[in-house]
């Protein structure tokens, strides 16, 4: 007893499913017919003349290989087949017997079938592929692996009317092919001695020989009666070339829609000769309709063939635009020589209707006027006259416009033989041109030179090739420094790309360095953060570029302390001070602090191009220091911005509180203007006189001037920055009525311009001496006061 477990049941089910799928698929596959509708068959243009007559497409070996590939194994003894009646029985039923010879192995007159096909092709200059397809569509010989002898007798169906037996004078493979080739050539040559039922033009062509005879399961001959003739209908076919005419001479029917929908299949009132010719040719050799692009094997020049003319194509982009005409096929020189040589093919083509078209990417666009052609750089008389079929093969696009958009997004205004790149719609609107455009390949206008771009003012344009940016203003471009490219300053300005060639059509100013002025002459520095109105433009002495007020309005205000004149270059560590158009590096942090009149620690970070546009001078040391050169003993006190005064004695500098001498190169020293006098204890700041005493500076007010007798004392002139670095006492000198030297016991009363020694402390007290009204002075200061009598 066997027990079926769940696992076994699953396995069994799985195998059963797979087995059933396999069987079902085999049955379905063997019986399924996939009818692929015929696409692209134009009854008026079934095959291109050039393809039809191109006898160079295959060698004998290639023909043989092709035949071998279609019948890998020949059923010589008729043993194959799947029908109840064997092939051999079928052959015998017609009075023949095996062995059977397939086309690939067939010989006649000592020649192989491949050689016969080739020879006929060469003799009549007909494409051997056409002959191969002819053999297939008339007798199925190419694919037949058990052909009957009758198939060779009427291999191409030549001399075989539908209403009578074939004429035996045409029998035989060689004979059949030769007659076919002769007829094809006669039609192609429009031979005056060979008459054709059809013309290149309008023709009445039936869909079928006639109605179906149910009794005989076949069609009647097409002209049995008038009713027969008209039964399946006809239509007017505009035969557009001789090769198609030749096909209709062979098979005077066209397929109806049902026949086209059936692919290789059969339908009511269908006719298959020309349909199958098209199908076999397309399947085996590619589209038969396009072969107008030709060249020889020896010369790479490609020609467009149209009827009896050949147009050389010199431009690869034009060749690329003719892709709808198919691949390039090789022809002989004699073939080319038989065609009239036209002018080199440009972008203008015309048909018999006279409409002149511009073409690109397989699309034709009608020109509106001769003037428009001139705009595109063409002469109205230049178009190449192409056959209606070729013209019709190109898709019809809209009419040409003077605005040309490329497939990669550029737009050009085409005018007077120039292409003017368009910045944006607003720019186009400014010149009053509609933005309507056609989108085509840029190569289509490669013949045109660049003109001045169509661009409005107050925008930024970026070069496609280099990424460089420019401000557009008044018909010129101002180059923007790379240091400003990614800044916030210009983000509100429109920014679009143009070709460098377009940009070069305008005058380009040198790179904008950040110094700008508006229409009223107000001067600004534009840095990465925006604009700053310069409160002291004379210090910068920059080369100012005038920008429009519109641009200034779009640039935000910068928050950088540009007016402090302390700057730092973006990416560098040195801080500079800008003075009278030069920038001076600041050697130390203390110098930086001491150079700041407000003692702040702020500086502006400027783009390198802005900083670099300011000449660099020597380092600058802050006022309130002592400097000397290595080549001289002279010591100077820096008493202001770029000013110095010679020091006569260190006792003086001690009174100023200045210590330590810095030795610097002589040329560093030379940047400072030198005061004519030497430094004494008197100093003038902001028109006030001061006394330097033991490191502190005391204002000599009017009262003190009288008290101390300093009315005529002359002091050195220190500027604001120099003075701010002095240690100013908050008390006026006049608040000190008594003085004494630090290491002396003598106290002096200051009165009436003299110093009066006081004889005793009691007297000092009596005179009002207090600790806060006595000034300890240096010996130098004491000696500046005239001696008076003791009190």
């Amino acid at each position, binding site marked *: 007893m066997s027990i079926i477990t769940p696992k076994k049941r699953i*396995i069994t089910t799985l195998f059963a499913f797979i087995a059933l799928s396999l069987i079902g698929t085999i049955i379905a*596959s063997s019986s399924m017919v*996939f009818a692929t509708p015929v696409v692209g068959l134009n009854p008026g243009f079934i095959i291109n003349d050039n393809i039809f007559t191109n006898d160079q497409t295959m060698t004998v070996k290639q023909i043989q290989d092709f035949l071998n590939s279609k019948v890998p194994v020949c059923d010589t003894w008729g043993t194959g087949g799947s029908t109840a009646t064997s092939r051999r029985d079928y052959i015998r039923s017609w*009075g023949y017997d095996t062995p059977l010879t397939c086309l690939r192995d067939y010989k006649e007159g000592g020649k192989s079938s491949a050689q016969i096909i080739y020879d006929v092709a060469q003799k009549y200059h007909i494409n051997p592929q056409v002959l191969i397809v002819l053999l297939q569509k008339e007798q199925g010989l190419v694919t037949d692996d058990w052909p009957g002898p009758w198939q060779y007798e009427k291999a191409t*169906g*030549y001399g*075989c*009317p539908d209403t009578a037996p074939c004429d035996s004078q045409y029998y035989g493979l060689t004979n059949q092919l030769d007659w076919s080739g002769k007829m094809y050539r006669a039609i192609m040559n429009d031979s005056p001695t060979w008459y054709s*039922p059809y*013309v290149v033009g309008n023709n009445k062509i039936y869909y079928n020989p006639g109605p179906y005879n149910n009794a005989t399961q076949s069609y009647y001959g097409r002209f049995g009666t008038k009713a027969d003739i008209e039964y399946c209908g006809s239509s007017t076919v505009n035969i557009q070339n001789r090769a198609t005419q030749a096909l209709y001479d062979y098979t005077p029917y066209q397929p109806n829609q049902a026949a086209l929908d059936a692919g290789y299949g059969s339908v009511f009132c269908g006719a298959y000769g020309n349909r199958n010719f098209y199908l076999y040719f397309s399947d085996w050799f590619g589209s038969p309709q396009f072969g107008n692009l030709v060249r020889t094997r020896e010369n790479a020049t490609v020609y467009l063939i149209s009827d009896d003319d050949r147009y050389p194509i010199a431009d690869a982009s034009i060749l690329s635009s003719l892709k709808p005409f198919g691949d390039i096929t090789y022809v002989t020189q004699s073939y080319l020589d038989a065609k009239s040589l036209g002018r080199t093919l440009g972008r203008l083509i015309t048909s018999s209707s006279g409409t002149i078209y511009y073409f690109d990417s397989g699309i034709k666009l009608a020109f509106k006027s001769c003037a428009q052609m001139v705009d595109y750089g063409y002469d109205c008389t230049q178009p190449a006259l192409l056959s209606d079929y070729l013209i019709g093969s190109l898709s019809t696009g809209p009419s040409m416009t003077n605005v040309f958009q490329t497939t990669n997004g550029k737009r050009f205004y085409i005018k007077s033989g120039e292409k003017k790149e368009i910045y944006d719609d607003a720019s186009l609107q400014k010149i009053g041109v509609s933005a309507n455009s056609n989108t085509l390949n840029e190569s289509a206008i490669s013949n045109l030179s660049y003109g001045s771009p169509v661009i409005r003012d107050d925008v930024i344009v970026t070069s496609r090739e280099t990424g460089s940016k420019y401000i557009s203003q008044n018909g010129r471009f101002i180059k923007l420094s790379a240091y400003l490219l990614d800044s916030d300053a210009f983000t509100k300005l429109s920014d679009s790309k143009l070709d460098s060639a377009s940009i070069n059509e305008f005058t380009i100013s040198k790179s904008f360095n950040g110094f700008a002025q508006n229409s009223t002459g107000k001067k600004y520095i534009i840095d990465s953060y925006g604009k700053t109105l310069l409160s002291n433009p004379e210090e910068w002495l920059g080369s100012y570029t005038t920008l429009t007020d519109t641009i200034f309005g779009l640039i935000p205000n910068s928050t950088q302390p540009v007016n402090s004149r302390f700057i730092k270059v973006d990416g560098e560590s040195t801080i500079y001070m800008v003075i009278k158009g030069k920038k001076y590096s600041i050697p130390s942090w203390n110098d930086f602090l001491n150079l700041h009149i407000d003692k702040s620690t702020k500086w502006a970070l400027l783009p390198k191009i802005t900083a670099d546009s300011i000449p660099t001078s020597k380092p600058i040391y802050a006022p309130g220091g002592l400097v000397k050169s290595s080549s001289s003993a002279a010591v100077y006190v820096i008493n202001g911005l770029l000013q110095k005064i010679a020091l006569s004695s260190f006792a003086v500098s001690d009174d100023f509180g200045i210590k330590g001498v810095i030795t610097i190169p002589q040329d560093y020293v030379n940047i400072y203007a030198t005061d004519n006098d030497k430094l004494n204890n008197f100093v003038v700041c902001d028109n006030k006189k001061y006394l330097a005493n033991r490191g502190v500076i005391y204002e000599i007010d009017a009262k003190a001037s009288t008290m101390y007798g300093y009315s005529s004392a002359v002091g050195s002139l220190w500027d604001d920055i120099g003075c701010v670095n002095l240690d100013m006492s908050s008390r006026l000198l006049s608040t000190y009525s008594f003085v004494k030297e630090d290491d002396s016991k003598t106290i002096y009363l200051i009165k009436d311009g003299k110093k009066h020694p006081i004889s005793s402390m009691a007297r000092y007290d009596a005179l009002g001496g207090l600790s806060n009204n006595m000034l300890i002075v240096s010996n130098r200061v004491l000696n500046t006061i005239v001696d008076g009598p003791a009190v």
Partner: protein
Amino acid sequence: MKINKRKSNKKIITIITSSMIILAVLYCTVAYFNDLFPFNSDKATNEQKDAGEDQKKSTAVPADGKDTTPKGNTSTDGIIAVDFTSFNQSTEQIQIRSLIEAVSNSGSCTLTMVKDGVTVTKTSGIQAGPTTSTCEGFNISIGELSPGDWQTTLSVEIGTRKGSATKTYKVQ
């Protein structure tokens, strides 16, 4: 209790392998019958072969030369079917073309055009084509035909067989 895990794994592997082989065979079968990869090389497709074989069988003739294939409507013996195929007018001439249901290089064609009592007659021989014939004409000078509707008749004689076609053409 002993659990034989190895045995169970073997079964699963066997099932998967078998399934894959079956699927491969399945695809190959479908591909073979439908000319899919790898059976889609240069060899002729079934459709192409079938179409060729249909043509072959429709044209088979006995070895003794007596073609028994039904040809045309036997009730019309003695009649040659004729029809106009083309009427094209250019600035210089009018082209009229015809189709004759017979393959013959002998016989005659007579084209008669009548309008307002004026008759223009042209004759020609017959040119055999691959499966039909045509009159060796007609190209009529435009000066011979005044504008208007012309009753046009083409009569063909090949031996004892005769045929004709009539149509009205407008000359511009």
